């Protein structure tokens, strides 16, 4: 068959700006592109033993998470001070909180998305998203919103992805112990994040469907003069953060704490698909920012109280304390004491394991407990009931 066709028609199609059809092929065009740069000096921040590095910037979607009640309490509160005769080896609640509680206002990751190589102080790189955040990352009902942090890290295992870590709970007993899984910490080293905590200035990636619900308590921010709420679609939001000392009373009063520096409020929207603003992520000590890569075991804010194992827990290197159960918003457990155990200092992520002598897998205040060891606690159980 010879090649045929109408030259006049072809010229007409060409004049109309028509190109070759692509069908289903070809690379997907990005839905949005952000420009990110990493700045700072790594030589003084690099952990010992790191000789080779692969610096990257990753977009990490945030999780809806609520701090566990134990970490939200005032460590000096009388409610946390047990009567006498607790284990003398036990630590004070304040020490356990400091070692095991993550920043209650911190950004909690849910999933790491795209990651691109970056050169420190080498200018901005383009980070493009080909897909919207998955449904499980969107928070809300009519209005759906997702926030993300741009994380600067060293991809030590060279897999091109930021690997997130979890805390390592100590062993527990009962039927749940068969489900207990522990995964090794990620070797990736975190050097910075555009959104680390709500008590510091942050630049966050926002994605919104529908009209923003200003009452949503998902990484809330006080109104900014420049951008009250995220616009529909993708955007970049900058905020000055709020004061941690005033945040709790304000939150308890049902109000958002004010921005410490309203001049940092900013918003940038994509032009076509590219957000022209450059997000700068400054390098910091990994210990300060590692939490931005720490997943939470449960994202609903509920604390899982575990059945104590029959065999003793190895407390070497860990802190633990005995404390009353904080009020759970309903049935109180005045006679129930929890044992709270921290992770190891070498763990990548902070975390606590809670034990009670009586409880259920889903609700420690259940009427019919799954386990009740109050009459016959394990021999190693360090907490004595209040006298």
């Amino acid at each position: 068959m010879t090649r045929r066709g109408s030259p006049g028609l072809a010229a007409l199609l060409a004049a109309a700006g028509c190109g070759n059809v692509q069908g289903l092929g070809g690379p997907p065009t990005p839905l949005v592109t952000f420009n990110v740069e990493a700045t700072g000096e790594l030589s003084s921040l690099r952990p010992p033993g790191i000789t080779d590095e692969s610096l990257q910037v990753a977009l990490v979607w945030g999780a809806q998470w609520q701090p566990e009640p134990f970490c939200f309490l005032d460590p000096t509160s009388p409610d946390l001070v047990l009567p006498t005769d607790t284990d003398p080896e036990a630590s004070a609640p304040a020490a356990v909180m400091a070692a095991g509680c993550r920043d209650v206002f911190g950004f909690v990751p849910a999933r790491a998305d795209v990651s691109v190589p970056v050169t420190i102080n080498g200018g901005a790189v383009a980070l493009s998203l080909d897909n919207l955040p998955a449904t499980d990352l969107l928070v809300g009902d009519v209005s759906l919103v997702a926030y993300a942090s741009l994380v600067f890290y060293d991809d030590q295992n060279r897999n091109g992805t930021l690997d997130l870590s979890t805390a390592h709970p100590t062993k527990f007993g009962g039927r749940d112990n068969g489900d207990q899984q522990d995964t090794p910490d990620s070797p990736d080293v975190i050097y910075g994040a555009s959104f680390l905590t709500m008590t510091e200035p942050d630049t966050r990636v926002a994605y919104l469907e529908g009209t923003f619900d200003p009452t949503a308590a998902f990484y809330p921010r006080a109104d900014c003069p420049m951008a009250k709420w995220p616009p529909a679609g993708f955007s970049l939001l900058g905020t000055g953060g709020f004061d941690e000392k005033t945040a709790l009373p304000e939150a308890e009063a049902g109000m958002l704490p004010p921005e410490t520096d309203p001049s940092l409020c900013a918003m940038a929207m994509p032009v076509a698909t590219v957000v022209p603003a450059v997000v700068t992520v400054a390098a910091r000590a990994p210990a300060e920012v590692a939490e931005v890569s720490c997943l939470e075991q449960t994202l609903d804010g509920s604390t899982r109280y575990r059945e104590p194992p029959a065999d003793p827990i190895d407390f070497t290197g860990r802190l633990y304390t005995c404390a009353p159960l904080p009020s759970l918003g309903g049935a109180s457990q005045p006679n129930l004491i929890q044992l709270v155990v921290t992770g190891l200092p070498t763990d990548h992520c902070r975390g606590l394991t809670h034990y009670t002598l009586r409880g259920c897998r889903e609700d420690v205040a259940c009427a019919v407990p799954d386990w009740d060891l109050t009459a016959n606690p394990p021999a190693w159980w360090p907490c004595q009931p209040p006298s």
Partner: protein
Amino acid sequence: MRRLLAALFLLGIFPAAARGDEALSVSDVWQVRSKSPLTVDGGLVLALPTALGTGLSSGVGAGVSYGRLLAWEARASWSTATESSIPWTVTQQDIKLRAGVALQHAFGRGRVGLRLGLGPTIVYESRLRNQGTRAELTGSALETSAAELFAAGDLQGVVALHVFGPWLLAVSGGPSLAIGSSGTVRGGWSSLVGIGWQP
């Protein structure tokens, strides 16, 4: 049978002359009266999309032929297909114009033949970026369009059956080949199911 005749009558299929006082006979209804070398046909087109590579393109087509054993033909069709991948939803419209010849032979009420048509196929494509609407994309970031001209040919087997009067049932189908303006060669198939009219 009376109901059938009544239905055909109401549908206006019988010529006005048949609505006289004379009683209709079965042989009158089914008598083949086609004598002309002209045949006009049209119907539903089903084909593999020229440039999409998958899916089913459906639409309408029509053609006219003139001749007995060897007939000259001119045909045109329009069909469309929509397929999706993870990033794209693609709709392609195929406009086919063909001129060619048909070698055909009549067997009683039937007619079989082989037709070869050559001509341009214009493919108009619309690509919608999936998730783009949710991401508030607009303009070319959301949707693009393109058109491409293919030189194409169809080889089709044809079966036509005279039903009554000048009317036929026509079925055709066979392989096709298209060469794009960029030199890409695409194989496929096309078919038509419809009716014909041969006075």
